C-alpha cells in the first residue's frame, strides 16, 4: 500500500504542473468541440469563444469561465493510473488513453452545462441545468475518473 501511495503522490507531482501549463492549449481543444454544441441553443447562436491564460471567455453573450474548474479531474486521472502496478505496460497505457478520452467528453459536456446553467441562473434562479451542472462538478467529475480507473484496473 505504501508503494501505491508513493506512486500516487509521484503521479500528482507530475500531473499538477503538466495540467497547469497545458491548460490553455487543452481548453482551446475543449472549446473547439463545445462551440458547435452551444450554437445549437438559439440564445447562444452568435457566441464567440476565446481562451486567455486559464480563462475561457465567451462573448455575445458574455461569460467568463475558469478553465481549471472544468478540467481539474485530469490530475486525479493521471495520479490514479500512476499508482497501478506497472503503469507503463501496454494494457494500462491503452486503458489510460481510453479513460482520458471519456473524461475529455465529460469536459465538453461540463462546459456546455456550465454555460447553460450560468444563464439559467441569470434568467431567474435555480434550474435543472444548474442541478445537473453542480452534480457533475462536485461529484461527477471525480466519480467518472474513479469508474474508468476501477473498470480498467479491478483485476490488479
Amino acid at each position, binding site marked *: *500500500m505504501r508503494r*501505491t*501511495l508513493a506512486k*500516487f503522490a509521484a503521479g*500528482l507531482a507530475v*500531473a*499538477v504542473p503538466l*495540467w*497547469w501549463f497545458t491548460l490553455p492549449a487543452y481548453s482551446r481543444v475543449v472549446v473547439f468541440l463545445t462551440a458547435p454544441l452551444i450554437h445549437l441553443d438559439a440564445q447562444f447562436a452568435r457566441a464567440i469563444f476565446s481562451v486567455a491564460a486559464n480563462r475561457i471567455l465567451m462573448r455575445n453573450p458574455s461569460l467568463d469561465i*475558469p478553465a*481549471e*474548474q472544468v478540467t*481539474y*479531474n485530469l*490530475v*486525479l486521472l493521471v*495520479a*490514479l493510473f500512476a499508482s497501478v502496478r506497472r503503469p507503463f505496460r501496454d*494494457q494500462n497505457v*491503452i*486503458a489510460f488513453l*481510453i479513460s482520458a478520452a471519456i473524461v475529455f467528453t465529460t469536459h465538453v459536456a461540463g462546459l456546455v452545462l456550465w454555460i447553460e446553467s450560468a444563464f439559467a441562473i441569470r434568467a431567474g434562479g435555480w434550474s435543472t441545468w444548474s*442541478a445537473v451542472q*453542480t*452534480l457533475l*462538478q*462536485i*461529484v*461527477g467529475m*471525480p*466519480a467518472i*475518473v*474513479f*469508474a474508468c*480507473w*476501477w*473498470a*480498467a*484496473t*479491478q*483485476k*490488479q
Partner: protein
Amino acid sequence: MASPLCEDRLQPVTMTTTAAEVHTPKRPRYTIRCVAANRRQIRFLVRFALLLIVFYAFMLYRPFEERVIDPYTQSIAAVSASLLNVGGAHVTRSGTLITGRTFGVEVKNGCNGVEALFFLAAAMIAFEAPARWRLAGVVVGSLVIEVLNIVRVASLYLIGAMRPDLFETFHLAIWQTVIFGAAVFMFVYWTSRVQRLDAANAR
C-alpha cells in the same frame, strides 16, 4: 475495452480433435467466469452511480441542506478556525466564513468533505459485502476524510494568506485530488479486507 479479468484459456483436446488442432488449439476470448466478473463490475458501477445521484438529491433538498449540511459545514469551519488559532494564525469565524487580517475563506459545498463522504459511502454500499462491514467502512472512512478536510481548509487559508497566486491550484488540483485519492484508496483497502474475510469464511 477488454476487461483485465478476461484471460485467454486453452480448450481441452477431445478425441475428435485433428492433428492440426492439437498443435493449434482454439483460444476463446471469454470464459463464463470472465463474463460473470464483467457483470459484477457493471452492476457495481451502476449501483455506485445511482447511489451518488440519490445522495446528491439529498444535498439539493432544501430542508436537508438547512438542517444537516449547513450546520455540518459550520462545524467544519469552526474546527478549522480553532486549528488555525492554535497554530497562531489569529482568525475569526462567522458561520462558514474564516477571516484573518489579509485573507478569508468561505467553506461551501464542495469544500466541506460531504461530496467525498458520499462518494466513499456510495462505493462501499454498492460493493457486495456484509452490512456491518459496510457500516464500519463508512464510519471509519468518514472520520479520515473529515480530518483530511479540516487540514485542507486550514492549509488553504494559510496558502491564500501567504501565496494567493497558488490558492486555486491547491484548492482544485491538489487538495481535491488528495481528498478523492484518499477516498479511493480507503475503498480499495476496505475491499481487500472484505475479500480476505470472504476467502477465510469460505474455507
